[in-house]
């Protein structure tokens, strides 16, 4: 089958690959580029485990064709920690016991990051709305909501 070139920025580094036309961004990231932090839970856009950030927008990588991402700036949970220091969201998820099986966690964190980038001081309702596309089957939602609110407070204290 004919291959098509794709080139984008992933967590700050340039990536280029030849992929089969029709390959999802999820499969391109996981199988070709080796970033397995986005997870495939349903491959039909309902569970949110594959969530990534494309040009600042939260996107489902299982419903995004890789070839539409040429030139894009893509961020995943694997790229959040800087110099080995956890991002405040990661730290808050750790401290708040907001992970159980961990499979939804990278998607949850990307969804939360897009929220905090736009709404640095979100209400509880804002957080619930922002995470509403992400399923935690272990049903640990409450600690996740608390973690996002805690990370927001930590951010605003650092900014002050």
């Amino acid at each position: 089958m004919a291959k098509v070139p794709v080139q984008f920025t992933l967590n700050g580094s340039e990536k280029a690959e030849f992929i089969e036309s029709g390959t999802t961004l999820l499969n391109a990231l996981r199988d070709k580029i080796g970033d397995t932090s986005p997870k495939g839970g349903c491959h039909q856009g309902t569970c949110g485990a594959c969530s990534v950030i494309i040009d600042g927008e939260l996107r489902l990588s299982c419903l995004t064709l890789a070839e539409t991402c040429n030139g894009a700036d893509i961020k995943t949970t694997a790229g959040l920690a800087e110099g080995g220091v956890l991002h405040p969201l990661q730290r808050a998820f750790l401290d708040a016991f907001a992970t159980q099986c961990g499979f939804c966690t990278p998607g949850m964190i990307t969804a939360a990051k897009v929220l905090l980038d736009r709404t640095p001081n979100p209400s509880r309702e804002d957080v619930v709305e922002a995470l509403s596309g992400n399923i935690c089957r272990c049903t640990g939602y409450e600690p996740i909501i608390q973690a996002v609110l805690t990370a927001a407070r930590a951010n605003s204290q650092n900014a002050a």
Partner: protein
Amino acid sequence: MELRKDYFADVRKDGLNEIGQPRPRLDSPGHVTGKTAYFADRNFPGMLHLKMVRSPHHHARIRSIDTSEAEKHPGVVRVLTARDVPHNVYTILILIQVGPEDETVLADGKVRWKGEAVVAVLAETERAAQEAAAKVKVDYEVLPAVFDMEEALKPGAPVVNEYHGQNYYLYDSGECRKVRFGDVEAGFAQADHILEQSYQSSPIEHAPTETTGCVVAPEGNDRFTCYTNTQAMFFTLDNASIILQMPGSKLHFVGGTVGGGFGGKVDVIVEPIAILGAKLTGRPVSFVYSREEEMQISSPRAAEKIVIKDGVMKDGRIVARKVTGYTDAGAYSRHSPYGAQKGAAHYPGPYTISNVWIDTYCVYTNRTPSSAMRGFGVTIGDFALEVQMDKLARLIGMDPLEFRFINAYRDGDMKAHRQPTEGAALIECMQEASRAANWPVAEKYMAMSSYRKGA
């Protein structure tokens, strides 16, 4: 978090180092950084993808299987049928002598539930495997099917599973697991009131976010490494060894990281056929359930029917309990004979009742095989028992919590299945629940104890 040290203070040393202390989870740093390696995060060059051809019928004889078109499909490397599997008929619990072997890895001559695996297709891409699977031709003769447990137990019902010969699991105690304690009929004769109620549940899917699957890599030394999200590593390794007729030393299982299990990943379903595929092709193999397969094919919690007849006195004592429980195993045993047996021990509930009669049946139907899920054999029973307890309390005009205090088991009480009660904390849990829920009970119940004599 609040640790209530006033409960059991006189029987506990207080030098607690870990209990009551928050401790970080060791796996959490991997989860928040996306570094935790789930089985599907393993990727090997040249990896093949396995897709299953499944039965569209609930019950049918297989007249013939034609894989010739599928084998010609571009990208297909190998097509597997029952005759490729060295020991095709197995049952998971044979490891603890719960037989007979009653389930096929790939259907041989017959299918017994809609969705049963018939032919495995291995191809270069998922898409090629899927397309080729659609080209496998299976000629079925559809047979009458039975979906209701009581219908399945009637004489003349279609026999679901010939390895059993009848539509129930034959325990060493006969057609059901039995508990007999005291004289249940004498208890009913003595009771002020008798209440008989029937409770039913449907199958429940665990719906883990990570679907069932494994990745198998052949190693250079004739061993196979299987990366799996099984919840039962050694059950799976040992059953794979039996099915493949390979010594366990040839199999290296890597796992323990599960993206949600809830009991849904304790069956041995994907690993043996994936290892066989890797052995016969010499290539790595990935077999991952689609979301649809996870919801429709993986074992759910069994449907249950529970009939409870209780005799109760006006003063609140339950003096007789008779329970008949039915567990719908679906077409194959998997863990259900064990689940039904657990129910037999459990149905008196955490209550001391002097006259008990219990029969629990593990029934075969042409439904999706059921298996483990969070307290299987017990959870649905608890729903039935506690609804029954509320109904009994209402019947005699008693507060439902006080009614439970009167009947709660305490240390030293003999349970119906002849295990003496030890370490019961029900009284204390209910005392704390009474406080926390602001549901007051009489002072005499707050002074009760699970373990202090006379209290």
